[in-house]
């Protein structure tokens, strides 16, 4: 199993964030995204990061999940750092490497951007680790529902999304199995990026054939269990917005207002 794919992997639990309504969580995420990009000072960004870390602590996310979730952005962080450190000029020259210089403003802007990126990933991790993919899909479906009047199949799309999410780990396992099976017969998947990409092509064919076969069987199983496109369905977990949800939404709104007013 590939443990580095933490983004979008749900961690069952019963923390406050777990119990929050997914719709509210989506709205709060949106508000915090706005806050994240409105913050102009290290103090404000620091506060936000502290808040996020407190949230992470209350959810009791295992450390390796957190690290695993942050791993995919390592290259983006490095790229950002290089870009800002070397190309944003101003302030005291901190380091001189031949014709290249690292200057104070570049470093501060770079660090600011990196802190923002980390904040962004922490937020999305908090959402996806505490919200089951199905809840997430249903939350999104709720906001798409008005489009239903225009003939947009919101309900079907929620089912499609949840099934896609359900099969990500299964297909990932299958690709690992295919990889090992081909390695066992002498296939070599090492090498540079492009040569590896080319070597993975033979992996894709069986993977897709397998996925299509799965889709056939799944469609049959769904039909056997009474699924019909367009038929009215109910949900096991009706989603109710409770007082705590409203409070969180209100607080997030207040935080946004505070950021706007104080210019943090």
């Amino acid at each position, binding site marked *: 199993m590939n443990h580095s794919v933490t983004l979008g992997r*749900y961690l*069952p639990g019963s923390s406050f964030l777990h119990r929050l309504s997914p719709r509210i969580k989506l709205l709060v995420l949106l508000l915090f995204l706005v806050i994240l990009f409105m913050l102009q000072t290290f103090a404000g960004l620091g506060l936000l990061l502290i808040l996020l870390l407190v949230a992470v602590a209350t959810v009791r996310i295992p450390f390796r999940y957190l690290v695993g979730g942050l791993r995919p952005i390592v290259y983006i962080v490095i790229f950002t750092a290089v870009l800002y450190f070397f190309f944003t000029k101003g302030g005291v020259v901190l380091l001189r490497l031949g014709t290249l210089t690292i200057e104070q403003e570049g470093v501060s802007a770079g660090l600011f951007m990196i802190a923002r990126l980390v904040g962004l990933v922490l937020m999305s991790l908090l959402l996806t680790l505490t919200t*089951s*993919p*199905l809840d997430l899909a249903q939350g999104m479906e709720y906001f798409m529902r008005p489009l239903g009047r225009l003939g947009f199949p919101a309900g079907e799309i929620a089912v499609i999304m*949840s*099934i896609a*999410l*359900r099969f990500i*780990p*299964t297909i990932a*396992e299958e690709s690992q199995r295919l990889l090992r099976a081909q390695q066992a017969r002498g296939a070599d998947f090492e090498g540079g990026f492009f040569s590896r990409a080319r070597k993975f092509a033979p992996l894709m064919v069986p993977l897709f054939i397998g996925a299509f*076969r*799965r889709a056939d*069987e*799944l469609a*049959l*199983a*769904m*039909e*056997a*269990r*009474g*699924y*019909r496109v367009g*038929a*009215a*369905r*109910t*949900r*096991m*977990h*009706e989603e109710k917005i409770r007082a705590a949800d409203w409070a969180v939404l209100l607080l997030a709104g207040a935080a946004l207002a505070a950021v706007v007013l104080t210019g943090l």
Partner: protein
Amino acid sequence: MAAVLLETKKLTFVYPGQPESSRPALKEIDLEVCAGEYIALMGANGSGKSTLLKQFNALLRPTGGAVFVDGLSTADDHCIPQIRSLCGMIFQNPDNQIVGTTVEEDVAFGLENRAVPPPEIRRRVAAALELLGIAHRAGFPPHQLSGGEKQRVALAGLLALRPRCLLLDEPTAMLDPAGQAVLLEAVQRLNREQGITVIQATHYPEEAALAGRVLLLENGLLLKEGPPNDILSDLPLLRSLGLGSTAAGELAYLLRRDGMPLPGGILHNRELAVQLCLYAQKN
């Protein structure tokens, strides 16, 4: 005799896209299954086991003849939701029939499709998980379960719908021995205690020996049917179909062929042991 639950009349089925003249997947099958029966369906690959099972919940519909479930014809579109509530089906591959992203969401899927009110869904899901001993897995994503647990989740998904008949398409084929035993035990218990009719396609003689009646299929024809100790002791016939009997059945057959006067119809180890002891005493 209990009431007839499933009935086929001259059931013939040709897969769509096949020419009319080609060999049908099922040919003129006449069958009656009573409520509460436990039936094993045996036959080589391609003999029509899955095709026959799929007829009973209208996933496939006859091209000739008719299939009735509790008196409802599968040819009638209006009856299909009801037929699928009466007859639930489990497939061979546990991975490809789980729809939900968590165990309880998957068990709820069939109920959600029938627009059952949410509090009722939660009650029935909890009861079904409890009955199959997987309540502690309720919040787990399916990929973290073993194969046997996945099949029990699929079974729970059917039970929540309170079906009268379970159609099991080689449900143990991809499980380890421990998973097979637990699943079979659960199915037998449902059959015994709740009177749920079971039709199980299987390659394993040991599983067929547990049934009340065994049906032998060959090339879409219902070749022979009867109690397991009749069907499974006919080794020449089974072998000609590429099948076999239980270990005890095979051994009893060989011993009889060697002239040992054992009675016919031995399938279980215990029966064989008893008969051998009796034989030893006499000599």
